[in-house]
């Protein structure tokens, strides 16, 4: 009797805690949406008369071009390394993920400088080149999803399609690709968010997107209401993007029952094998090898001319700044994500609603989150709950809060899906052997889902390491991350100065990508 009461009390308190977190994490987004209710008409009118139509056009053009580009590139490369055998396939399969470690604003200025000679100073700053750069740095999202989807498919579907008159190529278009569609859409949706979030790359190429506009309005006028209203446009585009995919999916399912035999791998020979290798290595060269090579030569020059520090500090200072922000943000996301997965009863509708609420941030571009957090924190500061002289705006806590709002979803969904893969019968066996909820979580679920949890954390770490718009708007005095250094140097076209921090980002990113790949390979073993 007493035990049920205490159990109930515990369940109440955990629900209350989780609800509080979900609310705290969703407020900044809700604040932005709310801002549309009382628009500051004068700023709005001026924007509409001057820059807004151009912003919308550029955002749409960039978004569509990059979505199509990453879809084509990511899917074809995923299919190439899954369905065909050619020299270097295994190595390429990994290397093609590494562009994740090279942020668009780094790849962008390398290409900008490389193509300045042939295209001219004006010609090089084009929206198409910007789209190309974003495509080449963002395709790994689609590539990873595509590869996973193709690996899950069964050869029998292709066999049946062929017996019904399809050639291998037709079977790909009519069966393999449609069945992979939800995964591809998931990857493309991530790419869409990244494009809407991007401020570093578009600034390099003089493309004025809405995200860029939010930043300009904020830094130009300091009017956070106007910035918030502009940000609503981004939320609108993001919602349309997600709704379109949900609608298209309808009632159809995309997974098959029965045994997974895996796809048969066709060995390529002669010219076709060479062609496949050339394509793979070509993409890797453009996305990783070339920029790393140029960054190294610039960094050597920077060392020679003594440009390896800023007024704020040297490389070590900026690196520590970045690691501190990324590390604390990642650990916070991980802790909250685990709390959510452990505390939520997956069968309850209310808990799915809570999960939706808490993960709202990831469907909202970075500048929106930054402005939303700013508005929220400013309101709290005005109430004056905190001791004299303490302000949340411009504090380290505020920055971490914003990063958690944006990236909690990445951690939560990663942890949730890997815990969900733990077989219910394994959990049931543990329960009948006398293990309580907590013991099951620590002894069974966490070890089995370990690889997936590490992978989710690494994704958050990569994202926060590269993060620019939120840090730009909310960083406290004395926190100067590597991306900020790159941003300051490149906005004055000082490539040599930008090389050292860029190289540091790529190096840390490469380590994280290596850990990610390792967990993806090993996660597959523990789950099956």
């Amino acid at each position, binding site marked *: 009797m007493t035990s049920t009461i205490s159990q109930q009390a515990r369940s109440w308190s955990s629900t209350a805690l989780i609800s509080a977190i979900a609310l705290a994490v969703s407020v900044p987004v809700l604040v932005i949406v709310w801002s549309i209710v009382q628009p500051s008409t004068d700023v709005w009118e001026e924007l509409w008369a001057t820059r807004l139509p151009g912003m919308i056009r550029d955002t749409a053009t960039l978004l569509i071009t990059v979505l199509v580009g990453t879809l084509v590139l990511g899917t074809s490369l995923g299919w190439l390394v899954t369905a065909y055998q050619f020299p270097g396939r295994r190595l390429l399969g990994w290397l093609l993920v590494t562009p994740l470690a090279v942020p668009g604003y780094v790849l962008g200025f390398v290409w900008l400088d490389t193509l300045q000679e042939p295209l001219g100073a004006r010609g090089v700053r084009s929206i198409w080149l910007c789209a190309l750069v974003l495509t080449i740095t963002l395709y790994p999202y689609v590539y990873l999803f595509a590869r996973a989807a193709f690996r899950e498919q*069964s050869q*029998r*579907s292709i*066999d*049946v*399609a*062929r*017996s*019904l*008159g*399809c*050639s291998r190529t*037709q079977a790909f278009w*009519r*069966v393999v690709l*449609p*069945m992979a*569609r939800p995964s591809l859409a998931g990857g493309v949706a991530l790419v869409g968010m990244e494009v809407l979030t991007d401020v570093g790359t578009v600034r390099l190429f003089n493309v004025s997107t809405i995200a860029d506009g939010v930043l300009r309005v904020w830094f130009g006028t300091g009017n956070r209401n106007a910035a918030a209203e502009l940000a609503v446009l981004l939320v609108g585009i993001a919602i349309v993007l997600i709704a379109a995919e949900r609608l298209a999916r309808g*009632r*159809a*399912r*995309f*997974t*098959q*029952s*029965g*045994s997974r035999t895996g796809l048969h791998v066709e060995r390529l020979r002669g010219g076709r094998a060479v062609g496949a290798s050339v394509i793979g290595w070509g993409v890797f060269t453009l996305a990783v090898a070339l920029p790393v090579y140029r960054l190294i030569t610039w960094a050597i020059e920077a060392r020679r001319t003594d440009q390896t520090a800023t007024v704020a500090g040297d490389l070590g200072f900026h690196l520590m700044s970045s690691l501190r922000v990324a590390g604390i943000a990642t650990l916070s996301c991980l802790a909250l994500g685990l709390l959510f997965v452990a505390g939520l009863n997956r069968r309850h509708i209310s808990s799915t609603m809570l999960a939706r609420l808490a993960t709202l941030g990831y469907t909202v571009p970075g500048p929106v989150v930054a402005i939303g957090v700013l508005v929220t924190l400013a309101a709290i500061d005005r109430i004056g709950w905190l001791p004299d002289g303490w302000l949340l705006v411009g504090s380290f806590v505020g920055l971490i809060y914003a990063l958690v709002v944006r990236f909690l979803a990445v951690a939560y969904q990663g942890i949730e899906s890997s815990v969900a893969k733990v077989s219910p019968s394994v959990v049931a066996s543990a329960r009948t052997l006398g293990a309580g909820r907590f013991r099951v979580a620590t002894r069974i679920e966490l070890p089995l889902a370990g690889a997936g949890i590490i992978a989710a954390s690494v994704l958050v770490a990569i994202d926060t390491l590269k993060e620019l718009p939120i840090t730009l708007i909310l960083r406290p005095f004395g926190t100067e991350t590597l991306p900020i250094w790159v941003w300051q140097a490149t906005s004055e076209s000082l490539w040599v100065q930008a090389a050292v921090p860029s190289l540091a980002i790529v190096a840390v990113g490469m380590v994280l990508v290596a850990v990610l790949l390792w967990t993806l390979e090993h996660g597959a073993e523990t789950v099956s």
Partner: protein
Amino acid sequence: MNGATQTRFHGAEATATVPDSMDATLEQPDAALSVSGVTRRIAGRDVVDQVSFDVTDGELVIIVGPSGCGKSSLLRAIAGLDPVAAGRVLLDGRDVTALPPEKRRIGLVFQDHALFPHLRVEQNIAFGLSHLDRAVRARRVHELLELVRLPGVAKRYPHELSGGEQQRIALARALAPDPAVVLLDEPFASLDPSLRDDVRTDVIEALRLRNAAAVLVTHDREEALALGDRVAVMSNGQMLQIDRPEEIYERPSDRFVATFLGEASFLPDPDQPGLAMMARPHDLDLAPRGDDVVTARRYMGAAWRYTVRRSDGSLIDVDLPGGPGTKPLAIGDACTVTIDAGHPLHRLPA
């Protein structure tokens, strides 16, 4: 005779050498499917070893064998999904050995249905009909749904159907393009035993109605004997025997075929050394008293099955009728095994 075959089937000479043993089983001119000397080699091992057989229109041939015997590999080779190392596959007299699967006109049904999960039932069935125009296609889909007795499910998705319904749709899809032969790989193995009989009956019925030639692969000997017009037993890549169910059960060509299709004991033939007599448990009787001993017994409803240790130490299974009033023997009882078949026992190589 090889020469005659090659002139009749133009182009066959390019593909394979026909082994001498094939002379005895030359393709029947009206065979829907004719397989001769087909060999499938994986890593130097013949997983299908010179297999030859024919299937006529409307006939259902069932290939049965233990798992790993090469029966599924044979099916894949016939379908053209895997290359053959030697031999030929003819469909309606046309040599298709060198053709890719999409050019062969073969219907395929797998154990896991392999329905396309992203397409509605009608789209699944119409998948192989893209060359037809809309109206004809719709009519064909309708016909096939009638044939498999699922007229109302056209607009549903595969995951909204039961396992048995999915399997019937998989058959309808395979039959839609009017294939020369339908190949079914363990089609009923994934079904719930309570459903299996119904689905089996419906599938066989549909095949009969279309007068389709069909090859079905299974590891279930009762399924093979009950359903097949002819039954083929495979082991280690070789087709040991192919014949009508009662022939192959009563007159197996060797001990493996005999024991794979049912319980059998082998007694030395007193007249012909080198031959053995095959005794099924119901061919035997037990006389009271003697040097043999009952070591185990099992009640099987219609009969009691006794395991008896004979005086020479060998074990032998004997079925005796059960029913009210019969008094079963007990374990440890002494007895004598006698032959009570009502027909001469089948003889095969010892």
